[in-house]
């Protein structure tokens, strides 16, 4: 490798060196996360079937193991960061794409739906947030929601911006019974759970501020919470979100198994044939020209959903399941235009990606970027 000659080349070389050091630090952090993982996770040999292992002892140890899992380390912190980013993005996406129609859909033009919308049982203050009597007041709430969602997405004052985002998101949703879809439902439920997680710990403005000592610290007079409470709340949120996605897949799969079009492999065609779900009609028509892809996709969707919880147990099948189901959701977004639903499901699927996998992936990415830059420096 030739010595960098110009100032630019010297700077690039320094950046490449810094990237390599960062990668090393990330790998070490991953090792630290692994280190903090309980010894029991590394020791997979003990099972009820092993010679000399007392089944009763193993079963009696399970509650302690579960408690230790839930109360020592916050799990899936990177996945929760990705969920935060995606959820904030989803809300912004809806607000931006529906901006021109906002008064028609949720504002003063939607008063006709009030006889039905107000009977759903939400507390009155949700309906008060997005006012239907005054377009200006409605717009203020609309812009506030966008600001809160942006702050939440980037992880600034994460817990506060998350709560406000959820509050305002419900406020706009309850204004009409005609516009919500599955993505709104799953986002509404799981965002409430996720607010109990440490969503701002990774890849956030809060993390950046915290590293520089600029985030507000807990006042001295405020009593300190027990060390186990944070991880317990965080991991309980994780369990609830993970359970929710599994519930959706399994219940949906059982329903599909009762449908003629699902069993005969043609359901994907009918989904793609409806005008309301065809942002690009030519693309949908192209996708359904041949029998095999339609039948294969129909069955793959059903099988993946039905077997999802089982596939999660073993790492190779977990990886395959996550890749497959992510592909299904990307297809739903692309072909049916249901991006809010697709992205929400992808965000929840990513909760099954371990922190050390994220650390490895980021380190790999940085390494490849550094290698690319180095090659550019070297090549004439």
């Amino acid at each position: 490798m030739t010595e960098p000659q110009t100032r630019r080349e010297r700077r690039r070389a320094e950046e490449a060196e810094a990237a390599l050091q960062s990668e090393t630090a990330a790998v070490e952090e991953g090792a630290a996360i692994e280190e903090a993982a309980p010894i029991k996770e590394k020791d997979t040999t003990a099972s009820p079937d092993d010679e000399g292992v007392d089944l009763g002892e193993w079963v009696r140890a399970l509650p302690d193991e579960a408690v230790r899992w839930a109360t020592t380390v916050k799990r899936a912190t990177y996945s929760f960061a990705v969920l935060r980013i995606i959820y904030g993005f989803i809300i912004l996406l809806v607000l931006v794409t529906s901006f021109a129609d906002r008064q028609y859909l949720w504002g003063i033009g939607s008063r006709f739906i009030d006889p039905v919308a107000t009977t759903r049982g939400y507390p009155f203050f949700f309906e008060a947030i997005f006012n239907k009597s005054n377009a200006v007041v409605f717009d203020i709430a609309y812009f506030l929601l966008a600001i809160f969602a942006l702050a939440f997405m980037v992880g600034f004052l994460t817990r506060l911006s998350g709560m406000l985002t959820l509050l305002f998101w419900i406020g706009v949703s309850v204004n009409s019974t005609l516009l919500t879809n599955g993505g709104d439902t799953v986002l509404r439920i799981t965002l409430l759970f996720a607010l109990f997680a440490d969503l701002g710990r990774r890849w956030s403005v809060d993390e950046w501020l915290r590293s520089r000592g600029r985030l507000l610290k807990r006042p001295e007079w405020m009593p300190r919470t027990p060390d186990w409470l944070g991880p317990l709340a965080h991991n309980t949120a994780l369990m609830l979100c993970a359970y929710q996605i599994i519930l959706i897949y399994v219940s949906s799969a059982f329903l599909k198994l009762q449908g003629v079009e699902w069993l005969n492999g043609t359901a994907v065609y009918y989904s793609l044939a409806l005008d309301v779900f065809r942002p690009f009609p030519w693309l949908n028509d192209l996708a359904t020209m041949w029998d095999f892809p339609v039948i294969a996709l129909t069955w793959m969707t059903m099988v993946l959903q039905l077997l999802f919880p089982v596939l999660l147990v073993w790492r190779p099948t977990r990886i395959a399941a996550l890749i497959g189901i992510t592909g299904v959701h990307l297809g739903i977004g692309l072909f049916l235009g249901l991006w809010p639903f697709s992205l929400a499901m992808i965000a929840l699927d990513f909760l099954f990606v371990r922190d050390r996998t994220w650390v490895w992936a980021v380190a790999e990415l940085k390494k490849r970027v550094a290698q690319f830059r180095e090659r550019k420096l070297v090549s004439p």
Partner: protein
Amino acid sequence: MAAILVLLYVVLSVAYVMPPGNVKNALGGYAALGRPYFSQSWNVFAPNILKANIELEFQAQWYDSSGELVSSDWISATDLETAAVAGWPVPSRIVKQSWNLIKAYNTRFIELNADQRDVVRDTFIRSVGGEFTTLSTEAVEEKLNDLGDNPGDVARLVRYDALMKEYVTYLATAYLGEDIARVRWRLFTQRPNDFEHRLDEAQQFEPDIRQFGWRLATERILPEVLAVYEEVVRRGGGGASDD
């Protein structure tokens, strides 16, 4: 405590998604605790996948300068809404408005018995002493209840009929630019070819039309609300010039 909370939610959510039956009925009271926030149903596209394109179409009448009652053509509210966002990879929620509206109305309609449906398909307008008036909400409910023993279904349909009338009145006023006197709507259903015939040029199925009777238009039209509908009509490429 955390385990209890998780378990509680598991039971609650299962109560929502499981099929109707004894277990669901037994959990009904408990499930009510979580409504509406945790209500959920994952039966979209399954088991019965939607196999038809549906549209809400409306027609309106108004009095011209000579006092004659003039009728418009049938206008597709669904086309108006989707035209504004055609080709968008992430369309606005507008594509769901009239689509879900007519679906919800039709769902309530098919809950009625045959005699009740005939009433809903008929006009609610009556001529009294040379003046046109409409059956009141209470009168419609009474009439429908006399024909069946399903007051809940009747109430739901009547409520939805009133809001459909208001929605269609605003849209018709915005589209036609007239002082609308009467409105009516219909569900237009067009089923795409079946999988085996998907590459055929010819349409396999005839459109299905379910038409509902005339209603007197909503009297009070608020200018600021009308302006919103006029903007939607404008962006959808519609308007009075398209008559």
